């Protein structure tokens, strides 16, 4: 029996070895290297191995850092709020109001198809809507709501958040829909028989049972927003910054040590956030 178990272990290890190799070379080693380089020194044209805390001292000593981290959390929180609201409503509609499985799958696919197309194109596609002479402004002017074009539609925090919600609501819809589909419908019937009204069923039955899905969606949205650097750059017209942009700016200036230090602080922030969220949900059980 023991031998059999050893055999299983060996074959399992063989089967995961390609996976482990990819993660080792392209995930673990790079992180280790970033940690190492974050203690290095940079000159204008090269980076020199060293062990100094200058990069971190500079990072924590600069007021820009705190603004930028605050911005990152702000984007994450606001985006989370809207995606959870939208995602829950859409998933609820698909899971409880659409009655045949074929229609559920069809409408679900309709929601997921944009996810498989290019994010950059989807960002670009807001230009004709939000631009100074864009659809939004000209519609509002023709309705007489405003006299002059609103300037803050494109290239603003508003545009950044709109793009985030546009890009990432899918990551809420999918896991929430997945957990909702597994809710035993007889529980809802039981609640109704016991005299609960629609709102009570939603609040006391469906939402508690959907929490794991909401948590998984939250993990996706929060990490995607916190790690982003293109959406913020593109949609704010380089007027706002988050941590990702701080890193990418340093990279563009070849300041790899300081980019690394910022990257490590960002990674720790994300991992701590995820660690807290994971306390509420067992991902493997919920798939």
């Amino acid at each position: 029996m023991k031998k059999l178990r050893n055999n299983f272990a060996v074959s399992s290890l063989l089967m995961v070895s390609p996976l482990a190799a990819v993660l080792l070379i392209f995930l673990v080693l790079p992180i280790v290297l970033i940690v190492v380089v974050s203690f290095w020194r940079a000159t204008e044209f090269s980076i020199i191995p060293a062990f100094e805390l200058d990069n971190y001292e500079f990072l924590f000593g600069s007021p820009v850092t705190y603004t930028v981290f605050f911005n990152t959390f702000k984007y994450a929180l606001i985006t989370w709020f809207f995606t959870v609201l939208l995602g829950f409503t859409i998933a609820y509609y698909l899971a409880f109001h659409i009655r045949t499985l074929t229609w559920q799958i069809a409408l679900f696919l309709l929601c997921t198809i944009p996810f498989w197309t290019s994010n950059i194109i989807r960002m670009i596609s807001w230009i004709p809507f939000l631009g100074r002479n864009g659809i939004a402004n000209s519609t509002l002017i023709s309705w007489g709501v405003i006299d002059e074009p609103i300037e803050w539609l494109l290239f603003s925090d508003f545009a950044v958040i709109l793009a985030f919600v546009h890009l990432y609501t899918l990551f809420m819809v999918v896991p929430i829909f997945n957990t909702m589909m597994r809710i035993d419908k007889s529980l809802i019937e039981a609640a109704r028989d016991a005299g609960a009204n629609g709102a009570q069923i939603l609040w006391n039955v469906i939402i508690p049972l959907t929490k794991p899905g909401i948590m998984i969606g939250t993990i996706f949205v929060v990490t995607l927003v916190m790690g982003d650097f293109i959406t913020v750059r593109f949609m704010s017209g380089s007027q706002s910054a988050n941590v990702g942009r701080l890193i990418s700016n340093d990279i563009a200036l070849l300041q790899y040590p300081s980019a690394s230090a910022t990257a490590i602080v960002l990674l720790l922030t994300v991992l701590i956030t995820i660690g807290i969220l994971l306390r509420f949900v067992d991902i493997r059980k919920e798939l």
Partner: protein
Amino acid sequence: MEPRTRSFYVLSAFFALFILFLYGPTITIGILSFQGEGGGLTFPMRGVSLYWFYDLFEQQAVGDIWGSFRRSFALGLMVMVVTVVVSVMGGLAFRRKFPGSNILFYLIITSLVIPSILISLGVGLLFSQSGLNVHWSTSGFGSQLTWTLPFGLLIMFAVFNRFDTSYEEAARDLGATPWQTLHHVVLPIIAPSLIGVALFGFTLSYDEFARTLLTAGSYNTLPLEIYGMTTNVTSPVLYALGTLTTVFSLIVIGTFLCIAMVMNRRRALKGSDSGKGV
């Protein structure tokens, strides 16, 4: 059937608005890419023409679009094949505990939640410090796998969580070797989900930007090329390119969905072969 409540109609309208929100902008640039020659980035349309599409084919100033498309396509296929194979193997292995399975699981989650720019930066540093050249087919390829593999594995975990192991036991009882069980029983049952994994593998790679930014080397992939265009091209040629790549993505998605549907239908038609002596 119960009658529809009022909330059904409210939510239906909400859903329709959501779909409009999802697709509206893309459809808009689809329309605007047919903008006339003198037209700009927003409405009104100044005539209808294919001018910007021709421009895309001719103008060399916008960069090497066809080269980057070919590279993205090849890379997408590479990532797709490796993602499917490695995810299936990983999914099978993860059905049992093995030494290090917890650590590996947390690495998979880390790979999923790590900000993409860290992969880009780290892999870029790894290659430059070890004296290797970054290239889309080596460093770019590996970086994209750190994004597609977690998705593939999560799908496989979900599939095997719902997998009825009595089929395998039955095969084993009938004397099938582990390989025969895998080949004739397990793989055919999970095949439709593999289409899903392949779709994720290809499209996530084809559209990936952040993880290839510093790892693609001197030959750009398509998303990098498009990103470069956003900073210096301010004509509807950008929309024309966007429309073409989106149409291409839709064709790919449609193909995968059709394959999945055909597979399901064939399975439904065949039904059970028990007692037929197959």
